[in-house]
């Protein structure tokens, strides 16, 4: 109803004149959320409809997003927003269900493992209840099923299985004929996430081969090795998807590279910001926050968002990994290096993302 305001340019213009904000429909949020929290306009609300346990430290949350949510493709992730102790926390997680499920019953799932010391994951495990409404961002990410069909190899570790689950279910439902192999590394058999679902898939989808390796059940840890890869038929012709802890991904990348599989046939998805190889010799410098009239120094080991927060400023921010652009602001002078791409900015005035920018020499920021 109210989102009509956002979709018509004329109405949107009028709304901006009347309510002095770029999201005029959200002006009514404080009243609407009292009536029905699913009518909130500032973010896309999603209701938690069910929660179930996968393993001792992993739960699956079933979410029903508001109708206007745009949907996703298998393997993509979303940013969610949750208010914890008055503070809005945004975090990114992979969707573990298939888009087909969303199209048929309007729900999606997030499968989330407790992280040691993780504020949001632990809060979700301990306090998030069904019928609560949380914020859901648009889906993003290019970890996608190959089209047209090709033989595929998945190498997943621990909770890195989540985007793979979404893809496997989608492939099974669309009658994917090319061979698909999953090498799934877990610490013990009890840590297998969605075990029932995976075994059911092997039963009804003949192209699929599942191999689960428990790394910590024998005396010497079993890590990914050439031996595991030897057991994958037609490895050289496969498109490879990696998702899991950094150690496993590095190892997999290395082994595949040595078997001559080219980089463009290896897809990885990350849970945290991958730091590009930055030449630390040129990083760091005096940072001037103009509007707050604050000067601090930087060693080049922290991004501007962290530097600003250490200086007791609270810039607006979202994902903290360079995706959502909530923290974009004006750099008025100086050069910064983008931690994702390793590229340096120009020296003049431009818009930068605080959460992935590292100062390179003295910089001035308009916050």
């Amino acid at each position, binding site marked *: 109803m109210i989102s009509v305001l956002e979709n018509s340019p004329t109405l949107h213009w009028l709304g901006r004149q009347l309510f002095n*904000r770029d999201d005029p429909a959200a002006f009514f949020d404080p009243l609407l959320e009292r009536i029905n929290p699913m009518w909130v306009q500032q973010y896309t609300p999603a209701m938690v409809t069910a929660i179930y346990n996968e393993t001792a430290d992993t739960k699956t949350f079933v979410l029903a997003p508001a109708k206007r949510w745009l949907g996703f493709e298998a393997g993509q992730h979303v940013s969610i927003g949750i208010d914890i102790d008055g503070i809005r926390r945004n975090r990114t997680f992979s969707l573990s269900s298939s888009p087909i499920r969303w199209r048929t019953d309007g729900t999606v799932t997030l499968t989330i493992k407790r992280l040691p010391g993780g504020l949001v994951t632990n809060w979700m495990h301990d306090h998030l209840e069904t019928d609560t409404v949380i914020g859901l961002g648009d889906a993003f990410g290019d970890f996608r099923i190959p089209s047209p069909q090709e033989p595929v190899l998945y190498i997943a570790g621990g909770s890195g299985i989540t985007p793979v689950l979404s893809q496997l279910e989608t492939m099974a439902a669309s009658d994917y004929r090319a061979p698909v192999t999953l090498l799934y590394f877990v610490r013990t058999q009890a840590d297998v996430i969605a075990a029932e679902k995976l075994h059911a898939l092997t039963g009804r989808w003949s192209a699929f081969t599942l191999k689960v390796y428990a790394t910590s059940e024998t005396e010497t840890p079993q890590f990914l090795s050439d031996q595991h890869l030897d057991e994958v038929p037609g490895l050289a012709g496969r498109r490879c998807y990696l998702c899991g802890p950094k150690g496993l991904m590095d190892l997999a990348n290395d082994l595949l590279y040595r078997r001559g599989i080219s980089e463009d046939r290896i897809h990885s998805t990350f849970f945290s910001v991958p730091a590009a190889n930055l030449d630390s010799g040129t990083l760091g410098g005096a940072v001037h926050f103009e509007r707050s009239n604050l000067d601090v120094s930087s060693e080049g080991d922290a991004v501007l968002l962290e530097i600003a927060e250490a200086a007791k400023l*609270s810039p*607006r921010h979202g994902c903290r990994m360079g995706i959502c652009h909530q923290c974009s602001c004006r750099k008025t002078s100086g050069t910064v290096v983008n931690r994702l791409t390793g590229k340096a900015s120009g020296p003049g005035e431009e818009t930068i993302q605080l959460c992935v920018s590292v100062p390179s020499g003295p910089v001035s920021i308009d916050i």
Partner: protein
Amino acid sequence: MKKMNETQLKELEQDLDTIRDQVIADLGERDARYIRRIVRLHRSLEVGGRVLMPFGFIPPVFIAATAALGISKIIENMEIGHNVMHGQYDWMNDTSLHSQTYEWDTVCTGDSWRRTHNYEHHTYTNIIGKDRDYGYALLRLSDDDKWKPAHSLQFINYVLLSVFFQWGVGLHELESERIRRREISVREKIPFLKDFFRKGGRQAFKDYVFFPLVTFPVAPVVLAGNVGANLIRNLWSSTVIFCGHFTQDAETFSEEECEGESKGHWYLRQLTGSSNFTGGKWMHVMSGHLSYQVEHHIFPDLPAHRYPEISEQVQAVCKKHGIPYNTGTFARQYSTVLKRVLGYSLPDRMRNRMLPEFSSAGAQS
């Protein structure tokens, strides 16, 4: 200003920082609930006022609608807009309550206000020549300006400023007095003026064109009610703000005495340059807690609803250091503001005779 040596100033700084740290460590759910409740109150009053206004041809409804809209604007400007733009709720990481993006329901643009108020006024509070909020470059309120015959009519200026307060605040950054003195050119102010006309136009369009037009048959009633609501907001907010720094005992400072000042000295200046007034809970909400101007000036970025809680601690710190804590009833504080405006419209000798409390031997020393 009370003279304190650097050791004493350092101790003052530490005492106040302790209070600040306690509040910061305690921020959370309670503060978020408070500001969201106030935002809900604002939305209810605004929606209520707008919906009732077309039925304003019934006199009691007219009064109720105008009051609802006027109070909604007061709450939005004072308790929400002013405080949010000070960054008091930035820690919540809610885009609709963030200082960098908030745009309020008044003519002054958020950006202009962040420059002139957040930065200029709060950094250089009451320093004559640097804090243009002191007298708004329009009123003579201290001996630092030499008396001229034109000043004798300044009470009229004061009334006009109060009536058109939102436009005055909106134009503050134009620095018309410096343009008159040819220190700067109008050309330099063109970007500012563009923003001013855009925002001012938007505000005028909303209250004086759009809402009267969509209720065409009763347009005059709606127009009158909207003018009334803006007037209520202008008179109240200017009055509250004048009580903050222009009361009898609020001090002014010279540029020399503040040169290269320490944090402790800055605290001392904020404490002695600001003044509070007492009242009921609604009075504090309606003034955006600027009734606790002293607390606001030492901690501009702490959520304002915390000021009443820390006021006693601040008073204890003042007492310990022998610093006056300027407060009184609203009526008393406001009457001294009027006296100051009137007093400084008179030549010095006449003022000294008629209002000796404002003579340079009195409050200013």
